[in-house]
């Protein structure tokens, strides 16, 4: 079986701005895969390239072996997408919206009706089936997006920030539901910036930053990449950190003191503790208390993307010296200009949105 998603050197440029930078990713069939990254990392652009809402500028992208451009019909048929934005047909009651979507995917009308009822029940808004989208609450709208993604019974379910801005109850409901779907065999691609969500749900995660892949690993692997802190309370006031450091082996990356407390940073707290105790006692220190605090995935994520940012800044600074490369400062200026334009555009849209209701009458 070909992988559920396979991209090779995928590139998307918006003018000067490179939103996807030679991104190569593989998501295996049946996997629960997380895409993590700060805002603007390119997660949504990546997803939209797969479903045909963004045209790639270069590279390859396949869904279950189908090229997203050459075999667009097969690729799109395999995907159910619950996007971040509320892009739902406002003219029809939600049950009909779901039936239409199922119909576009070739599901005959009778069956489409049954499926619509089934998914509305599954996400818990069946009693709202005759309402239009605009009359649903925020949480229900989120549920409907999921229902619409499910109504075509997709092999690949893509969830773009499904829990952004939803309450705890709904978040847990969604988690339960997607876990169940994954167990039933649906491949799931989840984008999120909630680390807890990725840790809890995903088999593997890719961390993205500024359009490219920083790393791909299991959440456990990632956590192992972080350092743990062993906090030790000594019976007597500890001497200078340097003195203690000399008593310890190379495993101690950093030693610091904080009043009576000694803090030692090591790779793996659990396995290093006996050695630490041994070395400290050998140096004549008596230990009163000890605690290991593990790095959270969140800290590792911040660390990884920060390192990235630093290296990106460095590389653009060095390329500024190159006469052919665009000036780094100028690039930054352009980016912020782009942002301003976007904001203005957003403002325009808001204003025009008001007009829209007046204008709808014209239709």
């Amino acid at each position: 079986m070909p992988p559920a998603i396979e991209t090779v050197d995928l590139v998307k440029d918006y003018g000067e701005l490179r939103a996807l930078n030679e991104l190569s990713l593989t998501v295996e069939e049946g996997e629960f895969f997380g895409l993590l990254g700060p805002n603007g990392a390119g997660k949504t652009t990546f997803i939209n390239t797969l479903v045909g809402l963004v045209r790639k500028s270069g590279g390859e992208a396949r869904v279950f072996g189908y090229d997203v451009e050459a075999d667009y019909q097969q690729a799109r048929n395999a995907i159910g997408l619950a996007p971040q934005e509320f892009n739902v047909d406002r003219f029809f009651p939600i049950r009909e919206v779901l039936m239409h979507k199922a119909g576009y995917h070739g599901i005959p009308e009778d069956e489409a009706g049954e499926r619509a009822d089934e998914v509305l029940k599954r996400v818990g808004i069946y009693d709202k089936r005759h309402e239009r989208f605009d009359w649903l609450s925020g949480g229900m709208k989120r549920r409907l997006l999921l229902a619409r993604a499910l109504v075509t019974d997709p092999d690949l379910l893509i969830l773009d920030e499904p829990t952004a801005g939803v309450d705890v109850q709904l978040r847990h409901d969604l988690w339960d539901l997607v876990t169940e779907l994954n167990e039933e065999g649906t491949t799931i691609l989840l984008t999120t910036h909630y680390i807890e969500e990725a840790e809890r749900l995903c088999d593997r995660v890719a961390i993205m930053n500024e359009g490219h892949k920083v790393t791909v690993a299991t959440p456990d692997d990632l956590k192992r990449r972080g350092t743990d802190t062993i906090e030790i309370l000594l019976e007597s006031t500890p001497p200078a950190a340097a003195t203690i450091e000399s008593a310890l082996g190379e495993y101690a990356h950093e030693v610091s003191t904080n009043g009576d407390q000694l803090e030692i940073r090591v790779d793996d707290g659990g396995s290093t503790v006996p050695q630490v105790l041994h070395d400290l006692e050998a140096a004549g220190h008596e230990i009163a208390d000890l605690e290991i605090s593990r790095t959270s995935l969140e800290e590792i994520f911040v660390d990884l993307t920060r390192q990235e940012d630093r290296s990106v800044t460095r590389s653009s600074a060095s390329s500024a010296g190159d006469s052919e490369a665009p000036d780094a400062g100028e690039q930054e200026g352009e980016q912020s200009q782009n942002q301003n334009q976007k904001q203005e555009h957003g403002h325009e849209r808001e204003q025009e949105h008001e007009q829209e209701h007046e204008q709808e009458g014209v239709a």
Partner: protein
Amino acid sequence: MLSVGFRALFKRELLRFVRRPKNTFMPPAITNVLYFAVFGMILGGRIDEPVEGIGYILFLIPGLVVLGTISNAFENASFSIFHGRWNEYIHETLTSPLSYVEMVVAYVSASAVRGLIVGVIIAVIGRLFVPISIENGLFLVATMVVIAALFAGLGIIGGLVARDFDDLTVMNQFILRPLVFFGAVFYSLTMLEPLWQAVSLLNPMVYMVDSVRYGLLGYSDMFEVAPAAYAEFAPLASLGVLTLLTVAVLAIDVYLFKIGYGLTD
């Protein structure tokens, strides 16, 4: 061609306007009752027959049918595409496995149906004011279908190109309407000076109105104003050219969908 997906989109497009008759069918019905009452009855009673044997109201009907048909076909397609882009729910179609040809044909045919329904409504209203007998039925139906599809196809382009709702209004009010009004809806080309007759022949609407008038009343201005050798074949030639134009416009629609113009980033 008639896949389940195509039928689903076609039905969605039909239901969108059928369920909103107050917005879609009532306005042209009321406007045309006014046209017939004022231009046809009150003013028309004082106007000589523009063409021998055809009273003014009867002469008006084909032009008003064309005006209603094309503006509604255009408006429906442009609005449906633009509103879908505006609220981004056109993504429901774009992310589905429909082919680009199926998408375009579904949007165009549903909009053409709206145009044709409005055309029939106007003809029926006209019939209330004056008796009509259809002279060339098959030719009339073919011409109506072609021009409805043509303007639905143009509406798709309008909906893809528009940047806000005002653009749609501009297209309909400032481009379509003047062309139709100067397209010999309210007068016969024979009433114009030779210079203005020649200028009028550059207006594509003239041929549409004229063809429908030929289909409905059996009279064509072309018989009078076109060069003698051409006059006899004028209606068929118009239909042929309009058909080619429609096919070309639909091909542009499909191309725009394929490259994602106005639809994808």
